[in-house]
Structures are given as structure tokens and as C-alpha cells.
């Protein structure tokens, strides 16, 4: 029972996620960055709900709930808290100018589609462009970490890559075994916590979160 409505909604939401990640690339303020990450996670939860309904496997509902709670609310809250605590300079000084990074993200999306093009012919309808979009979001997340100075933006970049990953998981495999899903959630959460601790320590020793100062170990 190919439910056309759900496929369209999934595609729409996937496209929305891609749009948000491009929005993140364009954001110049730290708060704006975190908020758009939160929106992206919420959309991801929505997709998983629709997919659960479409495929009828219950445990995806749990996953969706987890995404909504952990990624949608707790992590952004934690990020905003640490931004305030560390009195991080709100302005994001990008290494690569905003217009240039947007162009490159566009290029990355094209590359993602080019790479997944042979797979799409064999995959099912639903997963057809979700896989490409997940790959694109992963690439953009990575590029985000490369092109921004602040340690915080690197954390957010990593989380965006995780979101892209989740989109991939849901679209191709309709949810991996539950233990694995929960394990991944737990790991992502731990990673964010530990990065927060390290960011705090770096801020203490270097008085700034600007990773371009971290250049003492050479050669």
C-alpha cells in the first residue's frame, strides 16, 4: 500500500531539512545557529513519525520521541546554557565568507546527488532522495566545522552531521535494531557533554573558543 501522501510529506520534510541546513550555513549569530539546529531535529522527529506510520513498525515511534526530546530540546538548551556561561562572543567570524560557503554547500549537494545516483535506481521509492539529502547534510555539517572558527560551531556542525546520519538511517533501513538506536543516541549525548567539558577547559586556558589559536602543535 503505497501511501502517496506520506511519501510526499517525507520528501517535503527531507527537503525542509536540507533547507534548514543551508540556513544554518548562512547564520551569523550563535543563537540563530542553535535554534535552527533545534528546528532541524524537530523536523527529523516529524519524518520518523510519518515513516513509522507508513511502515507500521512501532519502535520508530520511540526513536522519534527520543529525537524530539534529546535533540530537539535538551541539547539546544545545553548549548545555549554553555554559550551564556562561557560568555562566548555571539558574533560568528567565519573563515570562509558567507556567500562562498553557501556556494560550496550547493556544490556539496550536487556531489551528494552525483554519488548516490547509481544507488537510487535500486532503492525503494521512499528512500530515493532521502539518502541523497542525508549525504548532503553530512557533507554540509562537515563543511560547517571546516569553515567556522568557534569551537561551539564545530560542535553544532558535528550534531548536524548526526542529524544527516539519522535521516540516512531512517530512510534506508526503516530503523535499525533498537539497542543500536538507543546506543547511538546515548553516544551522541555523551559526545556533546564531553565536548562541552572540553570547551569549558579550553575557554579557561585560552580565554577564547577560537580554534585558530589552537596552532601550537606543528610539524
Amino acid at each position, binding site marked *: 500500500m503505497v501511501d502517496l501522501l506520506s511519501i510526499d510529506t517525507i520528501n517535503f520534510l527531507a527537503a525542509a531539512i536540507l533547507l534548514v541546513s543551508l540556513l544554518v550555513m548562512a547564520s551569523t549569530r550563535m543563537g540563530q545557529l542553535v535554534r535552527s539546529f533545534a528546528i532541524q531535529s524537530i523536523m527529523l522527529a516529524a519524518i520518523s513519525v510519518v515513516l513509522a506510520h507508513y511502515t507500521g513498525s512501532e519502535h520508530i515511534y520511540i526513536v522519534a520521541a527520543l529525537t524530539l526530546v534529546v535533540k530537539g530540546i535538551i541539547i539546544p538548551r545545553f548549548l545555549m546554557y554553555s554559550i551564556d556561561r562561557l560568555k562566548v562572543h555571539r558574533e560568528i567570524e567565519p573563515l570562509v565568507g558567507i556567500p562562498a560557503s553557501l556556494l560550496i554547500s550547493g556544490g556539496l549537494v550536487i556531489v551528494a546527488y552525483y554519488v548516490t545516483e547509481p544507488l537510487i535506481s535500486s532503492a525503494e521509492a521512499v528512500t530515493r532522495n532521502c539518502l541523497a539529502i542525508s549525504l548532503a547534510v553530512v557533507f554540509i555539517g562537515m563543511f560547517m566545522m571546516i569553515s567556522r572558527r568557534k569551537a561551539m560551531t564545530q560542535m553544532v556542525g558535528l550534531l548536524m552531521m548526526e542529524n544527516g546520519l539519522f535521516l540516512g538511517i531512517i530512510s534506508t533501513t526503516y530503523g*535499525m535494531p533498537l539497542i543500536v538506536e538507543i546506543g547511538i543516541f546515548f553516544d551522541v549525548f555523551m559526545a556533546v557533554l564531553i565536548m562541552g567539558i572540553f570547551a569549558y577547559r579550553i575557554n579557561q586556558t585560552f580565554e577564547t573558543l577560537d580554534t585558530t589559536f589552537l596552532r*601550537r*602543535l606543528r610539524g
Partner: protein
Amino acid sequence: MVEILLLVPLITALLCAISRSERAIFVFSVAGSLITALVAIPYCYQAFFEGPVDTGLWYLDPLSGLFMVVIVVITALVSLYSVEYLKHDRTEGEINIKDLRYYHALLHLFAFSMLVVVVVDSLGLMWIAVEGTTLVSAFLVGFYKKSEAMEASWKYLIICSVGITLALLGIILLYASSVDALGANADTLDWSVLRSVAGQLDPALLKISFIFILVGLGTKAGLAPMHTWLPDAHSQAPTPISALLSAVLLNCAMYGVLRVHILANEAVPGFSSSLLIFFGLLSLAIATAFILTSRDVKRFLAFSSVEHMGIIALGFGIGGPLAVFGAVFHVLAHSLTKTLMFFGAGNVIQKYRTREMKDIKGLGRTMPTTAALLVLGGAAIAGSPPFAIFIGELFIISGALVQGDYLVAGLFIALLVIIFAGMTYRIFGMVSGKPQEGLPEGELGKLRLLPMLFLALAILGLGLFLPEVVSDALSAVVELFGVSA
């Protein structure tokens, strides 16, 4: 029953965390690692000789047996060595009792997470364990509160997390490629299941997933362009930890790559091998450049780990009974020799209080035993014959020659000779010459020489003789790669 093996390090970690006195921490830590070793022996024996142990969650086959041996032996030696190493640091006043407790607990947690990587059947769980090792070891890298340590741990954390995320994407694609072969049921991520159905995996998806996994886990394994975190992490971490990192952690990441390489070799023969050869040679070339020009002794050893990981990847890439046997033997030989070298470097750094190789002179007079062991280790790590690494390299070269790809063999030998020259120059430069004035003679402690002596004898023994037990175990591993040993 595999749980017991995993529980022991956890308990030791807990005990170390809560024990009050310094002595108690040391006793718990060393005892814990020895017990883990004892418990691991029957499992390894089972894994090597009585066929794979497959109990749903856990899966033990000769490959995991080999890596388990490496993990357990090296962890025991590292905990033994770090007793005196940290005692010296305490006397120097660099760390307090809390840090000591914290260090030993994390050490055993690190060992636990690596054991899980090797033991678990499902690739997803394996991924989680690898992520766990990164998180735990990030703290260990940032153990000293200096700014360089912070920088090194941050870089380590970020680059490895990115790498691992890509690896997860690879695993997902692998899972996707197995969907049409096994149908969309739940537990298709178990390696044993995938192994049985490897022939029908979707080749296009498999190729892309192998690329992601190789780049992702390759970052953790220190293969060439992704190795950038390795020298920083190894030079800033406490020396026993950098020994553990380069001798064991890199191998665990390589273990993951090899698991998928076995699958990919079935479905898309030749694709993964040529990739491994490419990365092997690339890491060898880049490591050569850095070995010739590095000044810090621990960065020098870190780059030699990149070089040896390249050799192992090259060995598995070339394939064929000889080369794979060489690569498997090289895993064992490299971890033993690299630990010996790091222990030696540890002694030297604590004595001379500097890591710059040009300031370390006259080691032969100030610390004769360490100098002798360092010379042995140096000759071994550079690949001169009476030691184990030479045997590994010899087998890989003969495997390459038998396969007929002379260009690879020629490049391999040329780079090896350059590295040999660079390494011996550095190491013998350190040992000879006159030491600076006012440096007290004599070793720092007797206990730390014990593990070094054991390692030196082990690599010399492995170099000259190969007892039946070891050769049967290794050929069992080689069979796994679908190659008649």
C-alpha cells in the same frame, strides 16, 4: 560467559576509582589487568582453535582472538609500567592523588571499551564501542592540564568523532546493501550473518560503504591523510597512554576496517584491496617525510606508528597467503615493538625532562640499560632482521613479488630503506655522544625495566623462531581472509 571477561576491567576501574591510598590503586590496577589476561586466555584458545564462539550478542573468531591477545597483553604491560611512571610524576608534583585515581580508572575503562569492540558481533554495537574508546581516551590524552594537552585532546576528539560519524554512515549503507539480500528483518547487522551472505550484497552500495568505513575508521587507525590527530595526541598524552594508543587503539580501528574488508573482498573482489594498497603506500610515504624531519621523540614514534599501520594495510591489501600472513604477524610484532620504544622514550623523557631529540645525548652513559633496550627496539622498529618486524615485512615483500605487482614491492622497499636510515640515525644519535653535565647517572626505577625486558625478549624470540602454537593461530586468522594459508 564472555561477560566475565568484560566485567573484570570494569570492576578494576571501579576499584581504582574508589580506593584511597596510592598503593591500593597500583595493586588493584596491576592485579586487574593480570586477571583480565588470565581470563582471556581460554577465550583466545577457543577462538583460535575450536572455531568461532557465536552467542548472539558476542562473536569470537580468530581475528578477534588475535586482537584480544594484543589488547590484553599490552594493557597488562602498560599498567605495570605506569605504576613507576606516575609515581615519578607524583614526586615531580605534576599530578595529585585524585588524578592518579582518575588515570587508572580511565585506563581500565579504555581497556574495557576496546575489548568490547573486539568481542561484539553486531557492527552497530562495535561502532558504539569505538565511539566509547574515543570519548574515554580523549580524557586520557588531556590528562596533563597544560594548554598543548588541551589542544591535542580537542583535535583528537573532533577529528575522531567526525571520522566515526562517517564510519556509521558507512555501516548504514552496508546495512542497506544487505537489505535486499536478507530482507528487512531486524538483526541483519551481525557480522556472522553478513559473512554468510557476503556474496549477494549489492556491489554499488557496498563500494560506497567501504569507502566511508575506510575513511572513517581509517581516521581512527591513523592512515595517511586522516592521521593528523595522531602525532599531537601521542606527544601530549602520558607515555604509557600513548603506548596503549598506538599499539592497541590503532589496531582496534584497523580491526573494524578488516571486518568490512573481508565482506567487501567477497562481494567486490579487488576493490577494497586496491584501496588498502593505496592508503598503505600513502601513509608509508607521508610517514617517511615526517620521520626524517621530526624533532620530538614521541612525535617521531607516532609517525612510525602511521608508517607501520600503512604497512599492515598494505599487507592486507596485497592479499595472497604470504602477504596476509606477513600483515597478521606484523600486527603482533608492531604492537610489541612500539610499546617497547614508547616505554624507552618514557624513561628518557622523564630523565632528560625534554622531548627534543637534539638535546638528548649520551644516553649510553647515563642510562645504559635503557640505552641498550632502546638500541634493540630502534633496530627492531626500523626492520632489521633478528627482530619480529623484519619477518613481517619480508613476508609482505615476498607476497607482493609472488602476486607480481613489482611497482608496489619496489616502492615499499625504497621507502623502508629510507625510513631505516632516518630512524637509525635519530636513535643512535640519541644514544651516543656526551650527555649534558650535571645529569645524574643511573636508571629511574627497576620495575619499569621489567616490562621492557619482556618485550625485548618477545620480539627477539618472534624474530628468530616461530613456535607451532603461534604459527597455527596465525594461519587460522589468515584463513579468515578467504586465502589458503
